[in-house]
C-alpha cells in the first residue's frame, strides 16, 4: 500500500457519519432546522391520523367548510365536511412517500446511467449521454403529461412518472464526477490490481461520488413534492378520495376567498416540507463540498 500514495478523497458521504462533514452539517443552523422540521412533519403524518378523532374519509356534507378549531376539528373541515387535519396528515404520508420514492428511483436510474457513462467512456458514454440530453430537451411538463396519459394516475404511477422525468440531472452530475475520478491514482491502482468493472464502479468510484449524489437526491425530494402538486393542479394527479397535498391544494383553489384555510393549510405544509429538504440539501452541500473550506 505504501507504494502508491493514497490519493483518495476523504470518502465523502460513505464515512459521513463520523466525518468532519457531519460536524459541519450540524453547525449549519438552517440544515438542522430543516432536519428537525421534516422529522416533526414525518412523525405528525405517521402518528397524527391515529390520534385524531376523525377518519380522513368520513363525509359530513352538512358540516362542511367549518373553520379551524371548530369542535374537534383542528384545522376545520373541507368541501365534503371531512376533517382537514386527518386529511392533511394522510396526504403528508402520500406526498412524502411519493417524494422520497421518486427520489430513490430517479437517483438509482441517474446514478447507474451516470456511472456507466462515466466509467466506460467511448461509444457507450456517448450514447447514454445523448439519450440523457434528449430527455433534457423535453420540457418536463410535456413528459409528465404525456406519460400521465398512458398510466392510470395512482400514487405509484405518479412516483414513476416523476422519477422518469427527473433522473437526468443526477446522471449528468454523476457522469461528470466519475469522469474526473476515473483517472485518479486509486482507481488506476484498482484497475492495475485486476479489479472488475463492477468492483471499481461500486466500491471505488461510487463512494467517492456520494457527496454530490446525496445533495442532488435531497433536492430531488423537494422538487418531487412540488411536481406532484403541479401535476395535481393540472388535473392529472393522485385520485380521490386518497388525499395528497397537491390535490388538496388543487381542490381548495376555488374556495380561496370563502374558505381560505383549505388552501393555506396544505400550502403551508408543502412549503414547510419542501423548504426543509432544501435546507438540508444546502447544509449537505456546504458540509460535503471541500471548497467551502475556503475563506
Amino acid at each position: 500500500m505504501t507504494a502508491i500514495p493514497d490519493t483518495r478523497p476523504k470518502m465523502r458521504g460513505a464515512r459521513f457519519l463520523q466525518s468532519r462533514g457531519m460536524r459541519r452539517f450540524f453547525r449549519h443552523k438552517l440544515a438542522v432546522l430543516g432536519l428537525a422540521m421534516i422529522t416533526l412533519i414525518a412523525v405528525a403524518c405517521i402518528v397524527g391520523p391515529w390520534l385524531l378523532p376523525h377518519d380522513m374519509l368520513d363525509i359530513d356534507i352538512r358540516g362542511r367548510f367549518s373553520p379551524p378549531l371548530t369542535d374537534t376539528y383542528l384545522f376545520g373541515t373541507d368541501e365534503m365536511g371531512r376533517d382537514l387535519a386527518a386529511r392533511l396528515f394522510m396526504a403528508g404520508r402520500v406526498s412524502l412517500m411519493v417524494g422520497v420514492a421518486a427520489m430513490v428511483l430517479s437517483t438509482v436510474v441517474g446514478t447507474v446511467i451516470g456511472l456507466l457513462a462515466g466509467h466506460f467512456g467511448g461509444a457507450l458514454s456517448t450514447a447514454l449521454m445523448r439519450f440523457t440530453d434528449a430527455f433534457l430537451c423535453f420540457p418536463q411538463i410535456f413528459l409528465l403529461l404525456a406519460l400521465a396519459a398512458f398510466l392510470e394516475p395512482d400514487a405509484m404511477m405518479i412516483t414513476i412518472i416523476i422519477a422518469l422525468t427527473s433522473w437526468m440531472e443526477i446522471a449528468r452530475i454523476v457522469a461528470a464526477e466519475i469522469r474526473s475520478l476515473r483517472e485518479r491514482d486509486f482507481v488506476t491502482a484498482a484497475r492495475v490490481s485486476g479489479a472488475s468493472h463492477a468492483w471499481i464502479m461500486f466500491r471505488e468510484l461510487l463512494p467517492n461520488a456520494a457527496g454530490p449524489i446525496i445533495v442532488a437526491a435531497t433536492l430531488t425530494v423537494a422538487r418531487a413534492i412540488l411536481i406532484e402538486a403541479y401535476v395535481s393542479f393540472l388535473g392529472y394527479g393522485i385520485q380521490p378520495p386518497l388525499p395528497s397535498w397537491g390535490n388538496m391544494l388543487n381542490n381548495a383553489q376555488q374556495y380561496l376567498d370563502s374558505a381560505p384555510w383549505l388552501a393555506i393549510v396544505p400550502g403551508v405544509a408543502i412549503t414547510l416540507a419542501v423548504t426543509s429538504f432544501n435546507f438540508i440539501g444546502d447544509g449537505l452541500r456546504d458540509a460535503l463540498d471541500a471548497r467551502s473550506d475556503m475563506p
Partner: protein
Amino acid sequence: MATFLLRRLGHSLLLLVLVSIIGFALLNLAPGGPLSQFALSPGMTQADLDRIAEQMGLNRPLPVQYLDWAGGLFFGDWGASFRDGRSVLSVISGHLFATLLLMAASTIISVGLGTLVGVLGATRRYSLFDQLATVGAMVALSIPTFWFGLVAIYVFALELGWLPAGNMYTIGDQSLGDYAIHLILPSVVLALVNVAIWSRYMRSAMLDVIGQDFVRTARAKGLRSQRVLWRHIIRNALIPMITLAGLQLPTLLSGALVTETVFTWPGMGRLFLDSLNYNDYPVVMGILMFTAILVLLGNLAADILVAAVDPRVRLE
C-alpha cells in the same frame, strides 16, 4: 472553431431526431386521441368519428405518419393545426410574442434582483441579510407558483383592485402603459422562483471566485476592494451564470405554463397545454421541436459566450 461548430451541429441534429421520435411515439401511442373532444357532441356517431380519423390520416401506420411529418418538417412544412387549420409555424409565432414579453420582463426582474441579492449575500456572508436572503430564497423555491399566483390575484386584483386579474392587454387600448399594468403580476410571480435560483447561484459563484488565487493576488496588489469586486469577482462570477441562463431555457416553457394559465396570458405555455389537452399533435410536435432547437441553440450560445468572456476556455 469550425470543427467545433460542425460537430456540435451534427450532435444537435441527432438529438433532434431522437427527441422527435420519442415525442411522436409518446403522443401517438397514448390512448385517446384528437377525436375524443367531439365524442360528447349531440348526434356524434362512431361512423362520423371513423370517417374524420380517415380524413385526417390518423389511421395510417405510425411510422408512415412519422415519416410524412418528419419529411414535411425537413422541407419547412411543419404541418397544420388540427384545431384551426392554420400552419403550425404561424400558430407558434402567434403565441411567441406574449411569452417572450413575459419572459423578458420576468428575466429582467429575476436577473437584476437575483444578482443584487447574490452579490450582497456573498460579500456579507453570514450577515443577517445573507441569512434572511438564504431563508427567503429557500422559501420562495418551495412555494407552488400557481398557489402564489392565485393569492396574488386575490389580494391585488380582487381585494385591493390595483391591478388587472389577468390578460395581456385591454382590447381596444393596447398602449404601452396598458401592457405594463397587465405585465406586473404575472412577471413578478414568474420571477419569484427565478430570483431565488439566480441569487443562490450568484452567491455561490461569487464565493467560488472570491476564494480563487487571482482575487487574492489582486487584493495583495493593493487594489481597492470595490474595484476588485466589480472588475474581478462579479465579472468572473457571471461566467457560470451564462451557462446557467442557457440551461434555463427549457424550464422557461414549463414555468410559463402555470403562470400563463393562472393569468390568462396567451403565450406558448398555454398553447402547449391546450394543444396537449386537445391532442393537437402537429402543434405539440411543433412546440416540442421549437423548444428543443431553442435548448440546443441556448447551450451552444452559452458555450460560445463563455469562450468569448473567459480567456481560459477554448472551443475544441
